[in-house]
């Protein structure tokens, strides 16, 4: 019996192991190219690069300390208009893979020929913290990641429980790096495609190896489970605090009172799917009389208007697909805890409909999948309540 997975020995560090594995896969022509974060020449940022040249791949960072661009968005950019013909391995964090899956359901990404490879994610630092001193930030990240300490990470990372394959099973391959105590990681298939890739890499081993792999897999799974439980508890507590801080109209207004309407949360959100945001459209470029009448009736009109409405509108659009990545909060110039608020809303909305954003391509988006009786639910009260009255009135 084959253990589901293989061992990736990491004597020269985990990054090196992943890079060498990818280079080998390129050599074997399992992939034509790799999409992976690479440090920029100024050594103060990371960007996704699509790489064919193995020499460039040497500079890759499979788990960089920050997430300047959400990988789901990068995948969306590449495949918005259709699927790739090249076979591309995308090495992303679990929340990025989940965003790519949501975008695919929204027809704004195409995953054919794209292999999603995720890693156990320790979180990422807030971009502004890292940029204060990139070298120190990288060191702080490495240390915290090694110790499983999420306190310096983005607030949404601190409470993330979908950092591994079990809670984010959409990846084709997943690299389990939670400490096994023996300088090695496991590489686990999440799909039939992932299994085929491992076979092509000849990473299915003999009996002796299989026993070892099975042991490592078991240890890794147990450890993931333990961290998931702890994270779930943190998430519950943090969400209770967020809820206490934002519940009610006044508190909600206060939370967003310093918003400057830059809409950067929307811009960097991987799943904000409208091609043109209503709040940026000509529909809201109104004649001055409209603004002045609203100012007169209320005494004052915040200008530009509709600040809170924008956030509510955005929430109603993307709460079901929100992967709680925290990109919005990173991009907010006013440090509004927008990622934390949205992650709370997302959990509530997704729980209500038994949906997990990015879990699987097979789960239909709740708001586009109607069942017959649901249409009935909407229709029936109308007939019962209003129709008769309308007939009488006529």
């Amino acid at each position: 019996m084959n253990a589901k997975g293989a061992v990736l020995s990491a004597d020269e560090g985990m990054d090196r192991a992943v890079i060498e594995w990818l280079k080998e896969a390129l050599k074997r022509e399992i992939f034509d190219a790799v999409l992976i974060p690479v440090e920029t020449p100024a050594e103060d940022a990371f960007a996704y690069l699509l790489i064919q040249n193995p020499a460039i791949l040497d500079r890759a960072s499979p788990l960089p300390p920050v997430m300047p661009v959400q990988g789901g968005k990068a995948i969306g950019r590449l495949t918005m208009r259709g699927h790739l013909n090249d076979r591309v391995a995308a090495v992303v964090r679990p929340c990025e893979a989940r965003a790519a899956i949501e975008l695919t359901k929204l027809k704004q990404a195409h995953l054919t020929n794209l292999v999603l490879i995720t890693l156990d994610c320790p979180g990422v630092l807030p971009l502004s913290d890292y940029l204060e001193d990139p070298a120190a930030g990288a060191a702080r990240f490495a240390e915290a990641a090694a110790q499983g300490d999420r306190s310096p990470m983005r607030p949404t990372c601190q409470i993330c429980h979908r950092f591994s394959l079990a809670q984010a099973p959409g990846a084709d391959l997943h690299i389990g790096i939670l400490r096994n105590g023996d300088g090695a990681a496991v590489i686990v298939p999440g799909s039939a495609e992932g299994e085929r890739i491992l076979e092509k890499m000849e990473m299915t081993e003999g009996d002796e190896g299989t026993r070892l792999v099975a042991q490592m897999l078991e240890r890794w799974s147990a450890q993931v489970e333990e961290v998931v439980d702890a994270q779930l508890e943190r998430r519950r507590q943090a969400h209770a605090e967020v809820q206490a801080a934002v519940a009610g109209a006044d508190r909600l207004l206060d939370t967003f009172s310093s918003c400057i309407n830059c809409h950067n949360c929307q811009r960097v959100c991987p799943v904000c799917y409208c091609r043109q945001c209503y709040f940026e459209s000509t529909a809201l470029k109104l004649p001055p009389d409209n603004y002045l009448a609203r100012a007169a009736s209320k005494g004052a009109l915040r200008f530009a208007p509709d600040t809170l409405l924008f956030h509510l509108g955005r929430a109603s659009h993307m709460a079901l697909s929100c992967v709680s990545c925290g990109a919005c909060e990173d991009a907010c110039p006013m440090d509004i805890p927008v990622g934390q608020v949205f992650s709370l809303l997302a959990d509530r909305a997704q729980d209500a409909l038994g949906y997990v954003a990015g879990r699987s391509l097979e789960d239909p988006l709740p708001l586009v999948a109607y069942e017959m009786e649901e249409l009935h639910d909407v229709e029936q009260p109308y007939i019962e309540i209003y129709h008769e009255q309308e007939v009488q009135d006529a």
Partner: protein
Amino acid sequence: MPEGATSSAFTPKGLRTNQGADETVRQLLRSLLERGDVEAVLALGRTGTGEEGVAYSLFADPDAFAPDGDARPLLPFMPANGGGLLSRLTLGGALVRPVAAVIRPCELRAFIELMKLNQGSLDNVFLISFTCGGVYPLETAVDGGLDEGMRGYWQGMEQGELDAAVRPTCRACQSFIPERADITVALFGEEHLDRQCTLYLNTERGAAFAQGLEGTAVTGGAEHAAIERSRGERDAFREELFAGVDGGMRGLIQTFGRCIGCHACKTVCPICYCQLCHFDSPDCEREPGYYEAELRRKGGLRVPPDTVFFQLGRMSHIALSCVGCGMCTDVCPADIPVSTIFSKVAASAQATFDYKPGRDLEEEIPLRTFREEEFAQVAT
């Protein structure tokens, strides 16, 4: 001639009140609303129930300008460029009745540039501006930090000294005396701002609107020795700031290497005039085959692409009209000194054409004015 422009028959006047600057401005705005001279006032104010939120609002209720009202017209903060907001207000049509706006010189200049770009209307916009001591970066307002700086700010204003914590672009600003305002409130380098305030009534309408204010006539203008000295200091800082920009292709790539492509700089820029940015348009949503071909050519390809190209495109569009307000730097999640770079390029582009954005509504944006001999140059 558009309303608000100085008519030749009118002689500008100065008026010194016996109240502090904040009180004077509040009283002026309150009386404008009470008398019905204006329908609303665009000014900064507190938002929400806490003390953190600051936003521009259209105030219609005069009580907003009572001493304990929500308005904070002189707060040294710029949550959005007011010029852009006035454009938004009048994009759907000219104002029929007057609206007053209290905005900074760079916001006023942005509005004038937008008028030249046909993005709004100056009609019935009554402009109140002031000699400017700069604004604090947006991040200062997080966690109530704005109030802490306030006392030092106003002391500095009286002494004609800029607070070192204001936006770098403010410390480098050469255009901190408003041009073209109906009323200029003298703040920078003025003594006793807590108990007196000098207003310069630059237009007939400005003089008419200030009628209710009591005070003594003063002569001269907003310029004085402290302003001249500060201009020198700001020039020196500007050179220092510009010298810190890494030039050349290498500098460009290194500096914008950490750009995350969010385009927030474009979103908050009052000048960025395209209704649909090329880089946000379907033209830049390419078929996968395009990326694959690029990949074959280069071996590696940044995704999303066009990071530096976006910056260069934006620069070529706005350099001549850039007013150096600094919004772009403040909103950049990657802490790129966008405004410094753009200001440096803008300075040389504007010098080439001897053009100063927002100086004069009648002065055409250079790229929109062609001379016949220029066509000949292109043809040969």
